[in-house]
């Protein structure tokens, strides 16, 4: 069986199933960017306060977790991320939604402050020209202060780019350019259940940016 199938190897070719190129073939709606309202200065301030307390809480959790390597040394904090096009992150990989929900549920149960977020069209991407030139837009990043978890997420998602950066505040770290996300219905839908509802990602955005 092996010998005969070896002959067939010559006919291999073409892009792989489910490779990013494959994903890209599926058209998706690039909406005219309908902007989210810009935050007022006062809103920013209140938000900044609340995120500061969040950060303190995160640091407290981290110190009790031997596998977390993040330290809050100085004002800068390190953020790790994986990024890919929105279609891949928010529409095609439905297990991703389950994973994020599972994590948020656990954090709630154990009283752990959230340390991961989704960012649609993140501003920090400007710092990574090598990433942006290889990225379909709009892009979505999964950002976390837990670098180890982001490594795990890279293993899970595979078709994503991984990097890290530093930022002074959570708001700065997660700043995003406003864009409206909509996906076309899939051409083929083989599942005996409907897709997760559009907008499932909202609980994972930084709260202030989630509000339109």
């Amino acid at each position: 069986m092996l010998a005969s199938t070896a002959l067939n190897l010559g006919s291999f070719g073409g892009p792989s199933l489910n490779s990013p190129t494959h994903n890209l073939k599926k058209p998706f709606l690039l909406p005219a960017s309908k902007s989210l309202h810009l935050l007022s200065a006062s809103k920013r301030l209140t938000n900044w306060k609340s995120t500061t307390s969040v950060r303190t809480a995160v640091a407290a959790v981290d110190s009790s977790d031997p596998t977390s390597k993040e330290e809050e040394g100085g004002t800068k904090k390190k953020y790790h991320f994986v990024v890919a096009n929105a279609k891949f992150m928010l529409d095609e990989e439905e297990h991703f939604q389950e994973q994020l929900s599972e994590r948020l549920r656990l954090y709630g149960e154990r009283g752990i402050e959230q340390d991961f977020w989704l960012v649609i069209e993140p501003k920090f991407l400007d710092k990574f020209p090598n990433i942006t030139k290889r990225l379909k837009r709009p892009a979505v990043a999964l950002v976390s202060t837990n670098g180890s978890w982001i490594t795990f997420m890279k293993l899970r998602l595979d078709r994503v780019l991984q990097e890290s950066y530093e930022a002074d505040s959570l708001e700065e770290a997660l700043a995003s350019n406003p864009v409206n996300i909509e996906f076309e219905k899939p051409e083929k839908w083989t599942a005996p259940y409907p897709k997760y509802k559009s907008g499932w990602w909202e609980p994972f955005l930084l709260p202030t940016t989630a509000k339109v």
Partner: protein
Amino acid sequence: MALVKPISKFITSTPKIGSSNGLQCTKFFTVRMSSATTPPPTVAAKKKKNMKKEIQESLLTPRFYTTDFDEMEQLFNTEINKNLNMAEFEALLQEFKTDFNQTHFVRNKEFKEAADKLQGPLRQIFVEFLERSCTAEFSGFLLYKELGRRLKKTNPVVAEIFSLMSRDEARHAGFLNKGLSDFNLALDLGFLTKARKYTFFKPKFIFYATYLSEKIGYWRYITIYRHLKENPEYQCYPIFKYFENWCQDENRHGDFFSALMKAQPQFLNDWKAKLWSRFFCLSVYVTMYLNDCQRTDFYEGIGLNTKEFDMHVIIETNRTTARIFPAVLDVENPEFKKKLDRMVVINKQILAIGETDDIPLVKNLKRIPLIAALASELLAAYLMKPIESGSMDFAEFEPQVVY
């Protein structure tokens, strides 16, 4: 996690190619079922009947696995393999330590009530489903537990992950066994450990097989869960409500095998790896399809169309598997499903022969052309033009990829 674990997690019985008693041949484990209380007469009768059945194993039977533990030690010895990507393993360890489902598997009184309502043929189907699922989870527990023990010295991180996975599997098996108690039954797992025949697989094959098992298991669970969430009228036993969180464990287990394979690129990067990848995909998909098509009562009982359910699971598993295996099958090509459907027909004919009154020799002679036909369909499916695949971490064209 056995080769056919995903399948056996739901399949209530195993079809036997060329066997007249396909439906009963794998119920060996019911032999040692101890009744928690007085078993209903139907179960007692079944027990007696099964005492007489021989333990027969075929390609489609769920198995317990063992492997070359010395080779495993070598493969993950950090002294020998300086290039092991320990960052991925450490990330996985953190994820497993988090223990997302620590408090998830808590039963309530709904179980017993639902079990009491299940009567007639559906009751039997559920009992078999629980038995086989429990056995399958338990087989994962045994293998992972042993690997956790054996790798402790050479690679404590990988060893601990195996131990934590065996924790998950034990939890799942225990939960299913408690489900059996709703039907006044219990599996004697200690007996199973000793009495089962273990199938030996070299580490490389354990990786392919368990990866597929875990991932296909995830897709089966999540599909059933989401279907029942949408169609709650078919929710006839509360165990399905636990599947959403439950199957995240399966998905993570699969990720770990993905990392194990990435750490051993020789299992992924040559023509042999491509042939084996396709072989394992085919075996797992065909086994599931044939099994499920024999047990449509179960799937229809929970409101699913068996073939549509299976094709969805196969397509999604294949998509997932393409993230790591160097080649996968073109399961979305309609020709692939046609081949599967023809195998179902042939398999039914083979089973029908077993039910005739012919003498064994005649039965065997009649089966020969059908088995040849089945083999030829299998070979044809195997030889269909495959799809090149694999992790982006290994792709030569990766620098050109647009994400």
